[in-house]
């Protein structure tokens, strides 16, 4: 990486046309027109409807969600008899035992989801960091490499985790591995972009001061660049991790393991009480990790 001479000016930027109050008003009008067109075409095609009896459906769904299945572990009937129409007993089950088993399965799935998110995010950060170093304009990587790295990041960011997951399930088979790789490939783009932005916002004068002592490029990186960006990189990594815990709950839908599998099962069998349990677990997991990562990020600054 050669670093001599000043950064060439960007030249007149097209975004300048929207500067000032009139420009902002024009943007607002443009946005309003876009929203209007979206609404008008949807209504015109008759696709904007809430169904036949939304109020009743809403009340029923809420009612079922309000009694999550895990309550059955303590409150459920110990002897539930399934009878046929003529009154003969088909099957007897202990609801408490059944739901306790489901709860245990949920716990295992939660752990798998956490594993997928954690390993996937780590892999994403490890792959995203070198690409970010190439993309960050202030580090002046060779232009061809920078373009290629930017292309990789853009592609990986624009393909959804689920799409990566579908492809990877076909390659590495069902299970958490596909989930980890799917998360890693998609988050690599997010990580790379966030890392590159924090590198670009560095105080370059301090970096130049390190370079001015005659330090080698590696020394400049480890004494100037790395300590300056490390807190932001850790903070971005935590953010992506947090995001992936949310994201990986859905990956089970495509057979990549974790809570998503149980969610799709509960949805297909219309077991809204179990779905309610699962959603409570998801929300608790995400909120706990949010709180934790916020603490860590605050401590880092």
């Amino acid at each position, binding site marked *: 990486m*050669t670093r*001599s*001479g000043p950064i060439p000016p960007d030249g007149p930027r097209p975004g300048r046309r929207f500067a000032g109050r009139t420009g902002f008003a024009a943007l607002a009008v443009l946005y309003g027109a876009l929203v209007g067109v979206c609404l008008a075409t949807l209504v015109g095609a008759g696709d904007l409807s809430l169904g036949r009896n939304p109020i009743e459906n809403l009340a029923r769904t809420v009612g079922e969600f309000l009694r999550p299945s895990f309550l059955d572990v303590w409150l459920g009937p110990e002897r539930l008899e399934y009878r046929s129409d003529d009154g003969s007993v088909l099957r007897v089950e202990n609801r408490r035992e059944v739901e306790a088993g489901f709860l245990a399965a949920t716990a295992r799935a939660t752990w798998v989801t956490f594993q997928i998110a954690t390993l996937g995010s780590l892999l994403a950060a490890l792959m995203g960091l070198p690409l970010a170093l190439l993309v960050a304009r202030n580090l002046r990587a060779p232009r061809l490499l920078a373009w290629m790295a930017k292309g990789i990041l853009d592609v990986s960011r624009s393909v959804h985790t689920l799409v990566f997951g579908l492809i990877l399930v076909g390659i590495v088979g069902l299970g958490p591995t596909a989930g980890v790789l799917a998360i890693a490939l998609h988050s690599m783009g997010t990580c790379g972009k966030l890392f590159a932005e924090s590198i670009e916002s560095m*105080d370059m*004068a*301090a970096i*130049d*001061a*390190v*370079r*001015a*002592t*005659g*330090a*080698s490029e*590696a*020394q400049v990186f*480890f*004494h*100037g660049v790395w*300590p*300056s960006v*490390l*807190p932001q990189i850790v903070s971005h990594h935590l953010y992506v991790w947090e995001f992936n815990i949310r994201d990986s709950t859905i990956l089970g839908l495509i057979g990549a393991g974790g809570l998503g599998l149980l969610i799709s099962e509960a949805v297909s069998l219309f077991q809204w009480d179990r779905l309610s349990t699962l959603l409570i677990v998801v929300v608790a997991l995400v909120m706990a990790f949010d709180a934790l990562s916020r603490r860590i990020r605050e401590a880092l600054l």
Partner: protein
Amino acid sequence: MSTAIRMEGMRVALAGRVVLDVPRLVIETGERVAIVGPNGAGKSMLLKVIGAGVPARHGQVHVLGYSLGPDPSEGEGTHRALAPDARRALRRDTGLLMQGLHLVQRLSARENVLIGALARLHGVHALRSWARWYPTDLVAEADAMLTALGLADRVGTRADRLSGGERQKVALARMLLQRPRLILADEPTSALDPTATREVCAALVGAAADRDRTLVTVVHDLDLLPALSTRVIGIRAGCIAWDLPTGRVTPQRLQALYGQPPVQADGPEVDPPAAPNAGWQA
């Protein structure tokens, strides 16, 4: 005596306007030179050209034996970058103390000072330095430097928690640890109280005491001229107005360089103040 800096026909133009025009300037090794002049005269620009921070595209510039001028085969207005090895060697031998200080905010004062010694490390020590693992004698040298500047109790403090004056001293210590042959300092005492100013001046002069060390300082506090320099260059509007031994710099010359002192409330006529910087700093 060999020549530390030699310029001939050097011009710097920004946006078509000539901001610095030095037909000839020679600074010998071992000299202590102060550059004075009003704001915007081109003092810092001259220092940056010497420090290779601003490319010299016109004329000839030789610093410590390296040629920084335009590419002779391409002609005026071009710039020939030094080979990477030569550029590093020149950077290692040139100690910069620029305005803005530019410490690495999240490293401690000691680690910032040790950055100055990076170019002195070789072999396995250079590799270890990637993990900020330094030879103990260097760490001791850095601590001694900070102690000499009155920062003994701040060695472990992060740079962004230091006061402005403390940062200035850390930047100075970093530069001194580099053991440069040429020291370029831009207003090294601008954020300092009188005691700290004395300490910093003593450290600068001490570092330049060897016969093979050259010190070039941009000075705003004209009281410091006798302490920091043996020769003073007055710059006005991008040109060298005069170039004299410090002993022959008179208040009248300084007054002419900075223009008339500001008119005071009690009358239009003002005698040259006893403290030379009282009126000219504006």
